[in-house]
């Protein structure tokens, strides 16, 4: 189990320390669900699969993307704020707020949990 955890953590090393454990938990959860897919077939199983596959996946993915976004945005915001503490700040040569907005929005909203990989 620990070996499996480590393998998944290393596969998710492209993500930050905040995002990676969330992705790993999601992957492990869906792997467990996949592992039992042939063991239970009835109406209740269909309902459960629907709930878990759709609702849980959507909310979890939105949250993980939200974490990815807030982490990047706050890191950029702090970097920009630190620039404002320079004695030259406010003289007109610093980054404009429009640029900050563009920077903060850059590279966001990537879908981290790939739906088809973890279909239950």
């Amino acid at each position, binding site marked *: 189990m620990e070996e499996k955890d480590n393998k998944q953590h290393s596969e998710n090393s492209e993500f930050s320390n905040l995002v990676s454990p969330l992705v790993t*938990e999601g992957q492990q959860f869906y792997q*467990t669900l996949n592992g*039992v897919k042939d063991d239970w*077939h009835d109406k209740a199983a269909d309902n459960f699969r629907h709930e878990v596959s759709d609702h849980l996946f959507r909310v979890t993915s939105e*949250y993980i993307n939200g974490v990815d976004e*807030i982490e990047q*945005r*706050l890191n950029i915001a702090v970097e920009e704020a630190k620039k404002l503490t320079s004695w030259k700040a406010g003289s007109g040569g610093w980054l404009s707020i429009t640029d900050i907005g563009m920077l*903060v929005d850059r590279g966001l909203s990537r879908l981290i949990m790939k739906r088809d990989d973890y279909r239950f």
Partner: protein
Amino acid sequence: MSEGAFVRNKEVFKRLIEAIDSFVCRNKENVQKVDDFVFEKENELKKIKELLEQRLVEAQHKLQSCLMEQAICHQRIEYDDEGNRIKPNCSSENNAVMKAQRQEKFARNALNEMNELLRYVEKFVREYYHKRDNFMQLLENKLPADQANLNKHSEIVQQYVNTLIRKNGRKRQ
């Protein structure tokens, strides 16, 4: 059990319940780490804003002081070598005022920029908390309800298995 029900392994419910338990428990810890990160960054930004406010106050004090020195200079009475009254030379005081005005303007601009940046951050944090609330709703309400349903199914399957065992036992007798 309902018509068409099929459970190959009754342990399936136990595994699913455990998977949900682990998912909920570990993700609550993960959410806490993210909350700590957001709190830490917001604090860092708050401290930078306080520094910029302090700089503006200092720049304003400096400007006031320079303006006072300039006013005192202009009130000075000076005479040339021939005893004629002349305008006092206040170029250094004037320069000091210009420099202080520039510094005050820079400090004010920097604080305005910081406030604008904080408005972005507030919006971003609000967006994050909306997603966090949905996720916590899932962890604290939705998944425990799913677990309760799985428990119910597990009990039904167990009852069904017990009934089968009893029936088989009677047949053997």
